């Protein structure tokens, strides 16, 4: 597997407080990697370590197989959760400044900025002061500045916070576009719906420790309770017989006579789709059959609570 970023047994302490406790992560190249966890779990500390804002006390971090070094900052774009701009600087100047700090030449940065600004329809802001812009406008500029130097690794910390739905959609599309172009994206958020939508893999950090990681699909399957949503043509008698074979968690009567929509679960332990489907077929005609996977939100809450209880 080709990993863009690997963290091995990373430990970070602040005085007596341990912010990261032997955290290991591997982010495959070209994926969108969700970094999840409750407030104060250590996500921001981890991100700061990748950005070399702070150094780990133990463990090591590799980008493209090389140990993290100062050169890598040019290949990382970071949009922090706490983000701002110099209020008294003009938009263009400000963006140029931040781009130059990421190693772009003035000429190249100017060219690229005009490209991005035109795309977002904000080129007319070039000579306006940042303080004259609305928060949403400022965030667009921050986004552009983050991606301008075409880094191989992009880190977005709560990117959608403060965005209105239209701009949030725009941002999401841009993130997916960047992925298509080959960027690897680390995405830290509380917003579980957006995780399901755009993340390929996730890691869940709680109280300085990684408690879960993997592909989003695999995780949801692993957390599956084998609950299926079913639409079945049947009759009350056969339905009663079915109830002795499986757990019927929910039964919603339908307007169509003889059609039952159900949420069912095998009562005898684990069961895959096929045995369930075979059972159902014996009691009626299956019109619709789908597995009800748990949402990332449920998994998040369940895992964090479980971790709390273990203590």
């Amino acid at each position, binding site marked *: 597997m080709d990993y863009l970023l690997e963290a091995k047994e990373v430990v970070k302490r*602040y*005085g007596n407080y341990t912010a990261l406790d032997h955290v290991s992560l591997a982010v495959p190249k070209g994926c969108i990697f969700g970094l999840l966890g409750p407030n104060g779990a250590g996500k921001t500390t981890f991100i*700061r370590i990748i*950005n*070399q*804002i*702070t*150094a780990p*006390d133990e463990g090591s971090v590799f980008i493209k197989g090389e140990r993290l070094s*100062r050169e890598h*900052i040019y290949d*990382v774009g*970071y*949009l*922090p959760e*706490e*983000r*701002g*701009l*110099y*209020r*008294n*600087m003009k938009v263009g100047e400000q963006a140029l*400044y*931040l781009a*130059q*700090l*990421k*190693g772009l030449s003035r000429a190249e940065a100017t060219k690229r900025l005009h490209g991005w600004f035109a795309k977002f329809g904000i080129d007319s802001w070039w000579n306006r002061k940042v303080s004259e812009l609305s928060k949403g406008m400022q965030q667009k500029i*921050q986004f552009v*500045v983050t991606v301008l130097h075409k880094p191989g690794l992009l880190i977005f910390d709560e990117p959608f916070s403060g965005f209105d739905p239209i701009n949030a959609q725009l941002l999401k599309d841009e993130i997916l576009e960047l992925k298509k172009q080959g960027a690897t994206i680390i995405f830290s958020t509380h917003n579980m719906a957006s995780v399901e939508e755009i993340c390929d893999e996730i890691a869940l950090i709680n109280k300085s420790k990684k408690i879960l990681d993997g592909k989003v699909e695999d995780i949801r399957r692993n957390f599956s309770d084998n609950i299926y949503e079913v639409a079945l043509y049947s009759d009350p008698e056969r339905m009663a017989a079915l109830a002795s074979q499986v757990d019927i968690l929910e039964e919603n009567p339908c307007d169509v006579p003889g059609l039952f929509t159900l949420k069912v679960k095998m009562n005898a332990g684990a069961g895959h789709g096929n045995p369930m489907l075979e059972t159902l077929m014996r009691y009626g005609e299956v019109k619709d059959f789908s597995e009800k996977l748990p949402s990332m939100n449920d998994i998040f809450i369940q895992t964090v609570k479980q971790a709390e209880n273990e203590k």
Partner: protein
Amino acid sequence: MKNNTWVVLQREYTTRVKKKGFFIMTILGPILLVALMFAPALLMQMGGSSKTYALVDETGLYATAFEKAENLFEPVKDTAEAKAGMRDEKYAGALWIPASGLDSNRQGMVFFYRETDPSMSTLEEIESLAENKLRMVLMQQESDLDPALFSYINEASVSVISQDVETGERSYTEIKSIIAYVVGFLIYGFVFIFGSQIMSGVIEEKSNRIIEVMISSVKPFQLLMGKVLGLALVGLTQLLLWGVLTLVLTMAVGLIGGSGSMEAAQMAATSSAMPGMGASVPMTEVQSTMLEIQSIIESLHLKTLLLYFLAYFLGGYLLYASLFAAIGAAVEDQEDTNQFMWPITIPLIFGILVVATVLKDPNGPLAFWTSIIPFTSPIVMMARIPFGVPAWELVLSLGLLVLGFIGTTWLAARIYRVGILMYGKKGSYKELWRWIRYKG
């Protein structure tokens, strides 16, 4: 990576130099300076507004005494007339010389004023003219000395000049004292003005929350250095512009005002006469003042003085600048800075206070120690340099200053790198100590 310090430096420099405030300061500074140099001279040349006073001389001795006075003294009959004249605004004041006192060498006089007090110089002038007259009168009464001989004796005076025994150079102590103060205040002012600018810049970055974006591209130390050096350049630019503008303005005012005002200015600056100039060489007044100015400049060793000024200016600034940045990093807004400001304020103010002592005794123990210790040396040593300082003291002082600013920068950088990312935590000295000890 060094590049990034440069990028930060450029921004700090250009944004500040482009500001209106910088422009205004740059223009106003030299104008004020030149105005201070020329105003007294120009005012003197204009002759000021001479006033008319009433003179009630009951002794009948002083009528001719005030002929040479700057103000006009008009004899009147009695105080009643004088007071009436004052009420009619005919007289700005009145001098009453009562008849009593003629029998001794003490003469009391009363100066009546209305609304505005008489100036110190008016009273001094009256006293000195009247004293001369009184002495003359007494001399004539009590002896048979020739009045011409008496006035020769009466005008006898002594002046002391100091001269270097090796080079024969004259020392202009008054001018050196003025320079000592001006330079001391310049360094003090620049440290405070530019230090505070750094501090508020750091607070701005922290409260704007741009700092996290910044330090994902720049190491905190590079950011700090970019700021400190950028502002040092702003300061040097300002000084350079002041120097050039002052020179241009001085020349312009000199030309416009004609040679008369130049002379007046020079005479106002130095009222003492040239040493070692025999009467055998006849000179115009202009020539002699030019020569005098030349010798003053020579005696000050202007080039060396300028060089030391730059060294101490930069050293002093660098010593304190990063500390200002550290304070900015330790707080959340400007109001919280007070508790951390005193370690900076006290040594600087102390330095300025010590300058007065230094001028009395440039080589005393207080002058020595405060000009060696880095926190006061930029101000105190600069005050001592015009009077001559042994080379080893200068080397020691400058060496310690360099060590001092490396030390404070190191300390400040450790506070800074932690402080800029701390929110919601109020800095205290204990907290700062913990930050200094954080590793990595």
